[in-house]
């Protein structure tokens, strides 16, 4: 297992180097931040002076060398637009994103897994049909529409919850539900179908013949084996949820990472885009590694030693 983990770590590092080169090149190919920032009246000389001041007039190789050497020390440079360290801006916004994504993850776990398992165990029951209808609806309803609907009902008509912004625990409820809604539907469907596959298998029948309690049959024998695709899907879903949602943050005026990133991309703010992409790729690499290790735990038949 340790060899497997070391191998996967090496693969992750190579992936991150490739990501750093790709994001470095792509943001520069997409446009010049100084040309975007400059007021209409700025002359080409003004623009050139600013570009030189920020070191953007140097060769790409030289800029990449500086970027990667600083990045290894956790310094992703200063935002071209906001003139503040990129990591500082990201850290400020990440608290809000974590709060929102955390609630969404909680909702997904609390709702999707039990309902998915229950719908599979009670296939054909009223609740199964209701769960399937909810899943179909959940995946069909666009988040911006759902978000605005929730705002209208709970914020404007009932006046129970704030319509936007961040502050009290109440502020996170509507955006959290909106963000989690789609994920709940997807994970619930996946859990249900994976459970249906395993519930009909021979080892589950054997477990029942042996007289094991139904709880043990379902959770220890059936769910554990059904969990493989669920874990893969859930892990990537959680990373996505924890990394900000442009649509939900825009609808609710939620000051998270998603809004910062979209603005950074729009204004070609290289340092922020690079820092966010590198952090995200590190998270995805870490989660993928974790999922691989979980596979081995959940299903001992999987052997990584080779």
């Amino acid at each position, binding site marked *: 297992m340790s060899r497997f983990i070391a191998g996967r770590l090496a693969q992750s590092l190579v992936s991150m180097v490739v990501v750093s080169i790709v994001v470095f090149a792509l943001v520069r190919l997409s446009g010049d931040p100084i040309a975007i920032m400059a007021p209409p009246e700025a002359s080409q000389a003004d623009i050139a002076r600013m570009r030189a001041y920020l070191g953007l007039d140097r060769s790409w190789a030289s800029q990449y060398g500086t970027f990667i050497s600083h990045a290894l020390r956790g310094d992703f440079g200063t935002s071209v637009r906001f003139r503040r360290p990129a990591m500082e801006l990201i850290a400020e916004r990440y608290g809000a994103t974590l709060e929102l994504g955390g609630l969404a993850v909680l909702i997904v776990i609390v709702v999707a897994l039990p309902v998915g398992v229950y719908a599979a165990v009670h296939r054909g029951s009223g609740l199964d049909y209701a769960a399937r209808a909810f899943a179909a609806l959940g995946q069909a309803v666009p988040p911006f529409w759902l978000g605005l609907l929730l705002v*209208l009902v709970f914020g404007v008509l009932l006046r129970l919850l704030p319509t936007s912004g961040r502050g009290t*625990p109440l502020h996170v409820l509507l955006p959290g539900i909106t963000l989690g809604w789609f994920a709940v539907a997807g994970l619930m469907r996946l859990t249900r179908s994976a459970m249906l596959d395993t519930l009909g298998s021979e080892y589950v029948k054997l477990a029942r013949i042996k007289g094991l309690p139904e709880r043990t049959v379902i959770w220890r024998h059936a769910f554990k084996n059904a969990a493989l695709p669920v874990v893969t899907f859930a892990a990537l879903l959680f990373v996505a949820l924890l990394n900000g949602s442009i649509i939900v943050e825009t609808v609710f005026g939620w000051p998270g990472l998603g809004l910062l990133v979209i603005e950074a991309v729009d204004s070609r703010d290289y340092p922020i885009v690079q820092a966010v992409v590198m952090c995200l790729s590190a998270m995805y690499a870490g989660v993928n590694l974790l999922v691989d290790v979980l596979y081995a735990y959940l299903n001992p038949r999987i052997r990584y030693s080779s």
Partner: protein
Amino acid sequence: MSRSIDRRAFLRRATAAAAVLTAAPLLGPRPARAQPDRLVVALGQWGTETPFAWRHVQAEKPLWDCVYDPLITRDPKTFEYRPGLATEWKPSNELKTWTFKLRPGVRFHEGYGELTAEDVKFTVEQSHKPDSLGGSAYYFRNNLDRIDTPDRLTVVMHFKTRQWIVPSLFTQYVGYQNVISKKYFESVGEQKAAAHPIGTGPFRHVEGKQGDYHRFEAVPGHWRKMPAFKELLIRRIPEPATRLAGLRSGEIDIAQVFGDYLEQAQKAGLRIHESPNAAQYWVILTGQTTPDREDFCPQCAWVGDQKDPRSWENGRKVRLALNLAVNKKAIYSGLWKGRGGDTPYSYYYYPFHRGYSADWKVPPYDPDRAKKLLAEAGHAGGFEVRVNPYVQLVAQDGPDVMEAVALDWEKLGIKVKRVPEATSSFGPKGRLRKTNKTFSVYGSPPFDEPLAGWERVLHSKGAFNLLLDGAFDEDIDAAMREFDPARRAQLTHALGQRLYDGYHGVMLGMKSITWALGKKVGSWSTLAYVPAETNYEYVTAGS
């Protein structure tokens, strides 16, 4: 078969979980109720969030102007200069020297002392920093020679050449210089001063979070205007539907609304407030530039070859046809909901400007005549044009207006190819005249004189081509050299007439910027012609 998670047990647990989730709002603190002494303003965007003139892109004004005072204010109705932090300002040395006398006894927030000439000098000189690119930094860097401060309340600015435009750079809107405290800035550094700005304005900055909100407190006994509300909270809410929901729920008191949201706001019982005539709209007919530019297109139907009188005249006929084809009244009623109209000019010439002529009219809607003109110009079957429906700072409804225009053009047989491209990448192309002859809708605020705008967007050496390039270079240069205001007004009028007759753009009219007001707001005295309204200190409390 016994089942550990039987239906009833599951339903019991699910009901309990749902009850917890549903009850959570009732257990936690209630949503912040509208506080009578707090004014909440929601903005869609606030640019780079910097409070410094030498960095900003104008979009920051609605956030930070409440912390500062301008050296020169504007009359709310006529747009004329009025004393602000400066009680008087006058030129000498043939307009190369401008002397400002400051108002005594104006104090910076949080005990940073009295405003002095050194603060003004320090603020303006930040424009010389190599990374200063915003506001009017370019202007001061290129034209300012030095600044003297002969006494505590006198600022003398020496320019390299004669400058008649100087006062406008110290008024509200274009180029506004937020005077900062030198003592504070030097003691905490730029980054901290940006996060917590200190000014002399009617509101003191208390705290804020980047990209989220900023909170301000009214300054008691402020020299210019004591705000009616003790606290001001400015929040950033990008989605207009959410801003409207906040207004309806009472969380927000003032928010910009436009288009369909205007009707929704009115149906919800909210009042609409206008900043009248804040933006002139026109369609830029790209291609009318100089031969050294990539966009140069003498063969384009709407341009023509300047060296060939017939071709040039045919180009003018096509441009007039493009004007006549557009149903402007449908835009005013359908998109602007009556908050704008056919003010008869579109290229920076406003009715309050000297030399303005009431004879100039927006070309009427006349598709039949437009078809005839196209046929006369040899384009009876139409031609293809590219349009970019993009959102521009002053024309937030640019995509809708562009589409309305495109649909009218298509009725003439013109093939309109829509090529959406974001402001961030399309804007720099406009500067370089590399738009691939793509048209777009432009919304412009006023300059003190139209010449100041034309120098930037009509002159072949100007920063942008928002109308045409090169054809009127000599006229613009001559008018800019003229320092007698009356004579300059004559030259401006003559140039304006030629521009009008050339139909170089598609004139659409003038639009008001609209806001919805909550119940807490009584009235709001805003500035005419200013799109980025900022004077929250003039908001009165409602009954």
